[in-house]
Structures are given as structure tokens and as C-alpha cells.
């Protein structure tokens, strides 16, 4: 009674069309198709009864059931009925729209109807799969079909939207992931902006000597790729650069980047390093980051021997010219290319790209967070990254494995799972530590002939050639001790000798093993700024802080933000082969997107009805996609259709009901509700 009478009843007052024409439109003729899905639906839902009931609903011209609606003959049925029976609305009761909405919209269109005159009912996931009682599952299916039939009366013809896609791609992070993705894209003829926060590309891989399981030299495979990046006509490399803002949307992102000053003109410097020799500091005084702090460098330095670009930089925190303003500037004098500029400033630039690949990698677990291993307390406790530098021919010791006092170790312990698989630090398995620990065991043994003890919890070597590598290292005489290290002590009088207490679970005893070097296999974790970065790019992180893929199996490199893809360890721990494979997949996705040339967008967008809007501004800050602007001159809200994702937030919030959303108009929703609730 209330709603028929008009006042305060608004949109649904005229709702019941009962198949009768709405203001002179042709009569509604609905076709309802109930799918058996083999026995998936038919086992629990009486599809014949659903079909029979559907046939009795107002506006329904024909109701059929069929074994597999998604099959060619099933789709053909829809098409033929539209042509022969003059249907103008289609309802298919089958599986999830996620699976086959596209299929049936296609069939509807093939019959000559606008595809949005179609409505899907999910009687599989919502009825047959979740119920056991046939009677009530069938009743529920009937209710759901009735809701769709009532809704579809009010559907309108809609057009999908097409927006052109810019062919440039931004790759964020110049580790092996970013490098691989950039090269694939550039070889595919797309222009790439590769931005790297540090002064050189290369990421973690550039720090390693050898790589498991093949023990090929990291530099030999990485450096050529780095140089290729530098020389590729389709790649614009920007180091010391970070993204500060991302505007726009898939196919048309506007990215604001910030270049930190290097105080060196990249186009003039040839990396001759005359300036470094000439610096007023006679010796290195500051910890070299690339050598994990194991060597010292000057305030003006080359990031590393293989750095790309081969260009020096000045650290303003350390350079005397910056602290006192009164340095003799011997470096400037020495530079015959006049490449040094103390007055360089931060620079902001905007880049227009169609797609973005995130390849920001990982950081290693800070071993100080597990103090019982003694890192930062005992000088002979090292992290794996430090040892990677020690074994590296271009590292601080020229590849000699020596302790801080210059002595060769005679017994070395390697502790697996540091910071990983532990509820107090990181619960996940970092995936690469067992393998790199075996690699380090092998390299240490090879170079020092020391006794090597690997303390592991479980030996995880699932990968091509991994198990074989493990067997090889085991046969070399490395002691593999299965057990958790309980504590590490330094001998009171023993020149820094360490005692490792460990429960040997295979031998069933507690052991105390003296070593003079302990290596901590620190795990991989999200970078400290991952949360901030994900906000900037409007992507999501999973609970553990890694960037989240759209689907763990079927969309492993996509994100929930269209046009933003993931490559490498920013998505979770992986080794180099996996990283490169994922980078290829991300580049492939970006190429597929760009190759299409345009984006086809769902027409489920919201619109402000300008003459109804009172300019109350309620909606403006709510849109998670910043799609709503306030037109100050007209005092109206305005939705950018291309940015709108159809989330409906503004529609629900608009206090005067002046925002409507395609496919979710009030009438459609209320009719659907009444359809479900109307017991027949």
C-alpha cells in the first residue's frame, strides 16, 4: 500500500510492468534458460521445475532448460530464440558471472540484441553447490530466477566504452626483474622508462659472485643485460629516481617522478674516476653500501665496478663542500670533462605511460632482530649478503674469504632460515635461502677448505637442478645438521671463536660446534617502504606485506589495478629464474594490453544527473579512484567516466539520489529484492 501510493515511494512506484509495455516501448519478451551444467546443477536443483516456474512469470515468452548452456548449441539456442521469437531480454540461470557472463552477453549480441539486455543467475555456486536438500535448493533457484526476470524488465541498452592506450611503459626498479621486463618490452618495440632509486641498476643480483644451482657467474650474465639497457634506443633509463605520484588510469597513466641530484652531469661523465683519486679524502672513509659495509669509499664514488650508468656520484651528507662550503674541490680540478655541479637540484618530471610494471624487489631480514645469533655483537657473525661480497672476485677482498682480521676461517657455520619461518619475525619461507646457503657452503669450501656446517630446519630444494646441487654439496663433505640453532656465544679467550649450540634432530642430541665464522642466511622481506609505494600506485599488499597479485593462480602478474603488473621479488620471494620468468610474463601482459590499442570498459559506471545535483559535495572525497570532480562554476559534481570503476560508493552516498549507476539503478535493485522475496 505504502509504495503504490507514491509519496516517499520514489523510484519503484511505477515498477510493476508485468510484461506490459513501459511508455510505448515494445512489450517485454524474456527468454529464460536454465542450465544443468552436466549434473553440477541438475543433481541438486530440479531444473525442470525451475524452468516451468520461470515460464509462468510475467513477461517471459519462453523458458527452456539445457544440458550445457555455455556450449555452442546452448548459445545457439539463445540466438535462434531471439531471432525467431522476437525476444528482447535474456536470463540465463547457470554458473557464476565471473565464468560465463561474457559468453552469454556474446550470445545475446549474436542474436542481434544489445548485450546488456542480458542478466545472469548463479544457481550453481549459490544453490546446487552449497545446498543438499533438493527441494529447498530448487525453491531458492526459482527465487533467484524470479529476481532476475523482474530486474531484466528495467535493463537498458548500454555501450561498452573504448579508450585508447598509450604505448609507453614504466618499469619501476632496475633489479634483474625490471631489467628483464624492460628489455622484453623494448625489443617488442615499445618505449620503456626504467626508473631506479639507486645510482646504478642491477639490484641484489649485481652483488653476487655465482648463482645457484648452475654456479654461473652473476656478473657474466647480468652485466651484458645492464649495458643493453643503457644502449637500447627504446629505453630511457633514469637512476636516482623515484615515483612520487600516479594519476590517470589504465592506458593513460600520468606519473610524476623525482630525480635526486647526483651532482654529476650524466651526459658528461665517462666514469674515468680521476675525481675519486683527486678527492681531498686520501682514503675511503664511508661504508660502501654495495659491499654491504665491508669496504670504505670516498664521498665521491662509483656505485660499483659494473655500474650502469658508469657515472660517479657525490654523497652530499659526506662531501666537505656541502658541509662547510669550503672544500678545495680537487675533484672539480681533476675532471677534464667539467662534469661536476654542486648546485644540481632535485628535479620533477611527468611521464605519460599506458602500463606500469612494478619490480621493486625485496630487502633482506635485519639479522639484529634475532639477537641470539650474535649479529652486530660478535664481529665474526656475517650476513649472507656480506659473504656474497666476500666471495665475489670484485668484492672488498678480491674474492678471498677472510675474517675481519684477515685470517682465513677454518670452520664456518651457516644458519638457514634467519628471520624466516618464524612467527616472531617473518612466518613465510624465503624460498632461496636453502639454495644460496648450499651455494655459499660450496664456495667457502672451495676457497678455504674450511669445515662447513649448514644448520637447517628443512632442506627445501624444489627446482630444476636444485636437488642435484644439494647432493653435490653434500658429497663435497659439507656437514648438514638438521636442527635449529639455539644460541651463539663467543669464547671468552678464543680470538673471536664462536660456539654454536644446536639440537641435531637426526642424531638426537644437542651439539656445541666451535666455528670461527658464522653466516646468517637472512630471509627476504618486503621493502621498508612497500606500503607507501603500494599506496602511490594504488595496488594492494597481502597480509604479509608483499604486493598482491590479482589471482594466485590465474593472474599471477596482474594487480587489482588494471594496467599495473608485478615482476620479481616485490610480489614474494623467488630466485632469479622465477624472477626472470615473471618479468617476461609481466612484459607480455603489458604488450597484450598495448597491442589491443584500446581498452574496453564495462559500462557499469556512475553518472551525476547534472540538473538534479545540488552541489553538496558529499561524493567528492569518497571515490577511491578520484573519479569525481567538483565543477566550481556550475556547482555540480562530475564523474570522469573513464576513471569510474563502478564501485557504487558515491551512488549510495549521494544524499539526494542524483547519482545513478548503469546496471545498478534503484529500480533494478528493488525489483530484484522484491523478486527474491515474493514467494510464489
Amino acid at each position: 500500500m505504502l509504495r503504490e501510493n507514491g509519496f516517499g515511494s520514489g523510484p519503484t512506484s511505477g515498477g510493476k510492468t508485468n510484461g506490459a509495455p513501459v511508455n510505448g516501448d515494445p512489450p517485454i519478451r524474456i527468454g529464460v534458460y536454465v542450465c544443468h551444467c552436466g549434473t553440477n546443477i541438475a543433481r541438486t536443483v530440479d531444473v525442470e521445475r525451475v524452468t516451468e516456474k520461470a515460464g509462468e512469470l510475467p513477461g517471459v515468452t519462453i523458458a527452456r532448460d539445457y544440458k550445457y548452456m555455455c556450449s555452442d548449441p546452448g548459445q545457439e539456442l539463445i540466438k535462434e530464440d531471439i531471432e525467431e521469437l522476437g525476444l528482447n531480454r535474456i536470463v540465463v540461470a547457470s554458473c557464476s558471472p565471473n565464468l560465463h557472463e561474457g559468453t552469454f552477453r556474446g550470445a545475446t549480441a549474436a542474436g542481434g540484441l544489445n548485450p546488456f539486455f542480458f542478466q545472469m543467475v548463479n544457481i550453481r555456486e549459490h544453490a546446487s553447490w552449497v545446498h543438499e536438500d533438493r527441494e529447498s535448493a530448487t525453491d531458492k533457484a526459482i527465487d533467484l530466477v524470479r529476481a532476475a526476470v523482474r530486474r531484466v524488465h528495467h535493463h537498458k541498452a548500454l555501450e561498452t566504452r573504448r579508450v585508447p592506450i598509450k604505448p609507453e611503459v614504466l618499469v619501476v626498479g632496475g633489479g634483474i626483474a625490471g631489467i628483464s621486463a624492460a628489455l622484453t618490452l623494448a625489443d617488442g618495440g615499445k618505449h620503456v622508462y626504467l626508473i631506479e632509486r639507486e645510482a646504478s641498476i642491477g639490484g641484489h643480483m649485481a652483488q653476487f659472485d655465482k648463482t645457484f644451482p648452475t654456479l654461473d657467474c652473476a656478473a657474466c650474465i647480468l652485466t651484458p643485460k645492464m649495458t643493453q639497457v643503457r644502449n637500447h634506443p627504446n629505453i630511457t633509463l633514469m637512476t636516482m629516481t623515484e615515483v612520487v605520484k600516479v594519476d590517470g588510469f589504465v592506458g593513460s597513466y600520468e606519473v610524476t617522478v623525482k630525480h635526486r641530484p647526483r651532482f654529476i652531469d650524466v651526459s658528461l661523465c665517462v666514469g674515468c674516476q680521476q675525481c675519486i683519486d683527486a678527492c681531498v679524502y686520501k682514503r675511503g672513509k664511508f661504508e660502501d653500501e654495495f659491499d654491504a659495509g665491508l669496504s670504505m669509499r670516498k664521498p665521491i664514488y662509483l656505485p660499483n665496478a659494473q655500474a650502469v650508468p658508469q657515472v660517479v656520484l657525490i654523497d652530499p651528507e659526506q662531501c666537505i663542500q656541502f658541509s662547510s662550503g669550503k672544500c678545495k674541490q680537487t675533484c672539480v680540478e681533476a675532471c677534464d670533462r667539467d662534469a661536476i655541479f654542486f648546485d644540481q637540484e632535485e628535479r620533477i618530471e611527468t611521464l605519460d605511460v599506458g602500463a606500469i610494471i612494478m619490480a621493486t624487489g625485496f630487502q633482506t631480514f635485519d639479522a639484529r632482530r634475532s639477537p641470539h645469533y650474535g649479529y652486530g655483537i660478535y664481529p665474526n657473525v656475517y650476513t649472507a649478503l656480506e659473504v656474497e661480497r666476500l666471495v665475489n672476485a670484485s668484492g672488498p677482498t678480491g674474492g678471498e674469504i677472510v675474517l675481519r682480521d684477515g685470517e682465513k676461517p677454518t670452520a664456518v657455520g651457516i644458519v638457514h632460515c634467519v628471520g624466516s619461518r618464524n612467527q616472531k619475525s617473518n612466518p613465510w619461507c624465503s624460498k632461496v635461502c636453502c639454495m644460496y646457503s648450499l651455494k655459499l657452503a660450496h664456495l667457502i669450501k672451495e676457497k678455504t677448505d674450511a669445515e662447513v656446517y649448514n644448520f637447517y630446519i628443512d632442506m627445501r630444494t624444489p627446482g630444476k637442478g636444485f636437488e642435484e646441487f644439494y647432493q653435490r654439496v653434500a658429497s663435497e663433505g659439507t656437514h648438514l645438521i638438521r636442527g635449529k640453532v639455539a644460541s651463539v656465544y663467543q669464547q671468552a679467550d678464543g680470538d673471536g671463536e664462536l660456539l654454536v649450540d644446536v639440537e641435531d634432530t637426526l642424531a638426537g642430541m644437542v651439539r656445541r660446534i666451535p666455528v670461527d665464522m658464522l653466516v646468517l642466511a637472512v630471509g627476504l622481506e618486503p621493502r621498508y617502504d612497500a606500503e607507501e609505494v603500494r599506496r602511490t600506485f594504488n595496488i594492494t599488499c597481502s597480509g604479509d606485506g608483499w604486493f598482491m597479485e590479482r589471482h594466485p593462480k590465474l593472474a599471477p602478474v596482474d594487480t587489482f589495478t588494471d594496467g599495473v603488473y608485478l615482476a620479481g621479488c616485490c610480489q614474494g620471494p623467488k630466485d632469479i629464474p622465477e624472477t626472470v620468468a615473471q618479468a617476461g610474463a609481466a612484459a607480455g601482459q603489458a604488450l597484450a594490453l598495448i597491442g589491443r590499442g584500446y581498452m574496453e570498459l564495462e559500462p557499469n559506471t556512475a553518472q551525476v544527473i547534472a540538473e538534479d545535483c545540488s552541489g553538496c559535495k558529499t561524493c567528492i572525497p569518497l571515490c577511491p579512484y578520484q573519479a569525481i570532480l567538483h565543477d566550481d562554476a556550475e556547482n555540480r559534481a562530475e564523474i570522469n567516466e573513464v576513471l569510474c570503476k563502478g564501485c557504487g560508493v558515491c551512488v549510495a552516498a549521494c544524499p539526494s539520489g542524483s547519482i545513478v549507476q548503469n546496471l545498478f539503478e534503484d529500480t533494478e535493485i528493488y525489483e530484484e529484492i522484491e523478486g527474491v522475496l515474493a514467494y510464489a
Partner: protein
Amino acid sequence: MTKPEGKPKVAFYWCASCGGCEEAVVDLAEGILDVVGAVDIVMWPVALDFKRADIEAMPDGSILASFINGAIRTTEQEEMASLLRRKSQLVIAFGACSQLGGIPGLANLYDREGVYRAAYLESPSTENPEGTLPRLRSRENGYDLSLPGFYDTVRALGQVIDVDYAIPGCAPHPKVIQAAVATLLSGELPPKGTVLAPDQAVCEECPRRESKPLDLSISEFKRPHEVIIDEETCLLAQGLLCLGPATRAGCDAACVCGNMPCSGCSGPTSRVLDHGAKAISGIASLIGGDDEEAIDSVLDGIPDPVGTFYRYGLPASLLRRKTLS
């Protein structure tokens, strides 16, 4: 519509209302005189002495338009509404109570017994030692007396009889009444069911609109008596719960111009099914605070949500009333 002989006949009637709507008509002053001259008023209890029998004697459909204010809560009101419906070509729900149930509609949070208790027994100003309550029939000094029946539920006019148009407001703004009457007399009748007032929200007419920030986030609701209200800034921006964004315009933002927040008397726009729900949805989306606790503390500033968001429209809302036990 058939044109009856002579001047068109018009009726005014009042049901459960405060008299403010009558006042609003009288307040039209000269504005109404032309209209009054052009029509024949056949009923107007507040001003003219016509009786129910006079109306009953008229042929069906002989009144051009009946303007009925007030909600329906008694049998007599329902009978009169039905009678006028039969005799009139057009029935216009006049004012918030008639259109949506109005302030009397808040009685739908109780039942008849609860209302009687409050009105005749418990209210501080009541002196009723015998506990006398209204009865349908009683005998007094040898006379049989009767009273109309009193429903548990207050209803809007449209929930009782078929209504053609509504004029919103508590009471309707003179400008709205004049425009509505002009529309009715113009002969070009809008579609049945139309609310005869602008279909935008109050913000549209509000002189403070521009001062409303684009990223309003409310961290505390204040009630008008607790603060000195700035006369130029958007009231919501000052933490005052203004229903302007959710309420139909036409009043020239009268309350806001009087430095009081809009309380929603003109009901929703035509596009909104439930005024209170929509207002809650809109206001809630402005609330700052990241966690549940912070949000709850902001909400503590709205001590009477039903009385705030459903002040004028509980009966016509989707909620209608509290469940009767």
C-alpha cells in the same frame, strides 16, 4: 478533467497536525486572495463552518481539489479522507505530516497504549488521578458519548487513500504553496504522484554552499545549543548535523538562513525511496575516524538517530514503525 459548473470548488481539511499548515495558508496573505476569489471553498474547518454532512450531500467528484494536511491516526480522519477522496477530482497531501507522516509519525515507535500512557498518565503536566483514558464509548450524565478510534499506527495520507500530489514542508513554504497552486490552476497537470516543489536538495538554494569544503570529514557532531554558530560557513563543516544535502529544496534554505541546520521537513527528492536511510548513508560517509572506536565516538554525537533522520517521515519510510508486539 470535467469542468464543473461555476467557480471550481476547493476543500481544506486537517487531520493529525499542529495547525501550522493552516497558518501557512493564512500566511499567504494577499498572495492567496486572487485564488480565493477564483474558487469556492466548500470546507475549511479552521475558518468556515461547513459540516461533514454538507460534503456528503455533494455529488462525487464535484470538488476540484482537496488539500488535506496532517497524518492519519484516527478512524474519523480516515473516514473524512475517504469522503473527500470520493468527492474530489484531485487530492493534495499538504505538508509533511500528510505527505510522509510527519512528527506525529514518531508515535510509530510506540503503540496506542504507549501513546496513551505518555499523554494521559505519565507526562509531567498531566493531572489524572483516576487514570481516565480515552474510550470509544462512555456514558456521562446520562448521555452516550463516543470518540473516534485511535490506531496503533500513524499513516501518511497516501497510505490511506489515493493521493494525486503533495506539497512538502513543515509547514510548506509560501513560495512552494504559491507555485504549487499556480501549477494546479494552469491546467497542465504534472504526472500523478508528483511532489510539487523543486527536485533538488536544499544545498542548491543555500547561501553557505560555497563554504562547504570538498573533503569534509566530521570528527565531532555538535548540537546547536552547544556552540556559537558561524553565520556564513556551511553548518556541516561546523559539525552541525544539517540535512540540507538530503532534503528537497523549495524553502530557500529558510532554517539555514536562520542559523539553524536543516532538519529535513521537506522530505527526500523524488529519486529517494527512504529519506532517513539516504540521509544516514550520506552523513555517515562524511564521518572521519579510521577505526570502529573513533567512528562510534563521532556517532555518540547523534543521541537520537530516529528522531534526527526520520523526524518527518517514519510512517512513509521503509521502516514504517517499530514492530507491534
